[in-house]
């Protein structure tokens, strides 16, 4: 019982991550693959944020009147910093992937992976 209460957050992120992983390897539509990659990245971001959490702690903005700073009072700021930049990088890589997919659609008039391979084989 203690294992379930202590670890269920990881299991939720693993379920989310596997949904994205399935979309990446099983779907044939290229846009669905990229959306699956985004779900995968979201799961990893949630995992890092949950590592930062400490029980009975507050956000890492220090109270100025405090004389002695106790680190167990504030949650870990490092995963927040890394994920803050990772979210923006996620958006920009999504934009680049969509741009490449749009160029592929311009060239082959289809988004299906297998049809693109068929067209390439015919040449």
């Amino acid at each position, binding site marked *: 019982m*203690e*294992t379930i*209460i*202590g*670890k*269920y*957050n*990881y*299991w939720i992120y*693993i*379920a989310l*991550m*596997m949904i994205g*992983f*399935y979309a990446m*390897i*099983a779907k044939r539509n290229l846009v669905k693959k990229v959306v699956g990659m985004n779900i995968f990245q979201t799961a990893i971001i949630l995992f890092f944020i*949950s*590592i*930062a*959490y*400490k*029980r009975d*702690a507050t956000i*890492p*903005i*220090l*109270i*100025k009147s405090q004389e002695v*700073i106790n*680190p*167990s009072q*504030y*949650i*870990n*700021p*490092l*995963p*927040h*910093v890394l994920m*803050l*930049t990772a979210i*923006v*990088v996620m958006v*920009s*890589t999504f*934009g*680049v992937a969509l*741009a*490449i997919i*749009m*160029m592929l659609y311009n060239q082959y008039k289809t988004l299906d992976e297998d049809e693109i391979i068929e067209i390439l084989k015919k040449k």
Partner: protein
Amino acid sequence: MKLFALIIVIMTGATLIYSTLEMPNWGDPNSPASLHVSPRYIEKTLEETATPNAVTSVLADYRGYDTLGETTVIFTAAVVCILLLRRFEDDKTV
């Protein structure tokens, strides 16, 4: 093909769930991630950088080189988008 993908996904998920049994509990104040380097950031941020928000001081000061790299990444992403997609009206090659 889809069944094969499903089997791979379930096996990967089972391996990951098995590995979480060794992870620290959720909200544990003594987990390894919150003992190594973050207490120093929290303790010294006010006296070293005069910034109460530890996230901002780590982002721009302690790990500023990292943020420079991230800014370069999104700069590159915008340049790639412009190079791939932008077509001007007087362009005869399209």
